[in-house]
């Protein structure tokens, strides 16, 4: 029933040939394709990982920048606030000084006005008084009083004149 004949040699040769043929036409190209695909996938994965890393770095740097900007913003605001406070103080001080100056000016002017008024009033009063006195004295003057005034006042004046003239003469005589 079971008979081994020499066709077994052909079958061995056939199978060995098949192994080589299949290696050439099937296994080699398929394995190559598989390798290429896995390589490709690995490459893609690596690329993705690299891209992810790049994105992560970018994100990091953006966050950093955002932080810096925020800090700078806060710093600028603070500075501006400080400056504003300074300017405000300055303005208030200047306004106060200006007000003070104006106040002094007005005080001075008012004082001057009052003084002027006072002096005018005084002059008026003196003038009025003079007129009154003049009128009074004119009504009182008599030849007797006149004589007396001449006797006394003129005498005084004469004495002085005499003294002056004496000195002049003496000088001239020397």
């Amino acid at each position, binding site marked *: 029933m079971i008979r081994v004949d020499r066709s077994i040699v052909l079958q061995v040769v056939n199978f060995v040939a098949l192994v080589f043929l299949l290696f050439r036409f099937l296994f080699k190209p398929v394995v190559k394709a598989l390798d290429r695909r896995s390589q490709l996938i690995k490459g893609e994965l690596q690329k993705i990982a690299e891209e992810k890393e790049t994105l992560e770095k970018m994100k990091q740097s953006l966050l950093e920048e955002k932080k810096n900007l925020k800090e700078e913003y806060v710093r600028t605001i603070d500075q501006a606030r400080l400056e504003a406070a300074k300017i405000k103080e300055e303005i208030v001080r200047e306004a106060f000084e200006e007000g003070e100056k104006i106040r002094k000016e007005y005080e001075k002017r008012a004082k001057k006005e009052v003084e002027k008024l006072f002096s005018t009033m005084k002059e008026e009063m003196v003038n009025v008084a003079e007129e009154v006195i003049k009128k009074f004295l004119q009504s009182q003057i008599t030849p007797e009083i006149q004589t007396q005034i001449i006797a006394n006042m003129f005498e005084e004046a004469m004495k002085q004149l*005499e003294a002056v003239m004496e000195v002049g003469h003496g000088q001239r005589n020397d």
Partner: protein
Amino acid sequence: MDRETIRVVSPLPLTEEQRDIIREKLSRVVKTGLFSIEEEVDPSLIGGIVVFFRDMIIDCSVKTQLQRMKEAILRD
């Protein structure tokens, strides 16, 4: 020597007595005694006299006294 003319201004016309007093006093400064008095009336002087002697004015008027008083008051 020419006679000197001395002008005397007074508020009232001079009486004889007054004229004498003036003459007597003036003669003390005019040694020669040769002078005449020219009289003038000015009521605004109120009292006293003003004498124009040579280049001098001898003002003994009440008006001037008052004026001086007034100036003194207004000065301070």
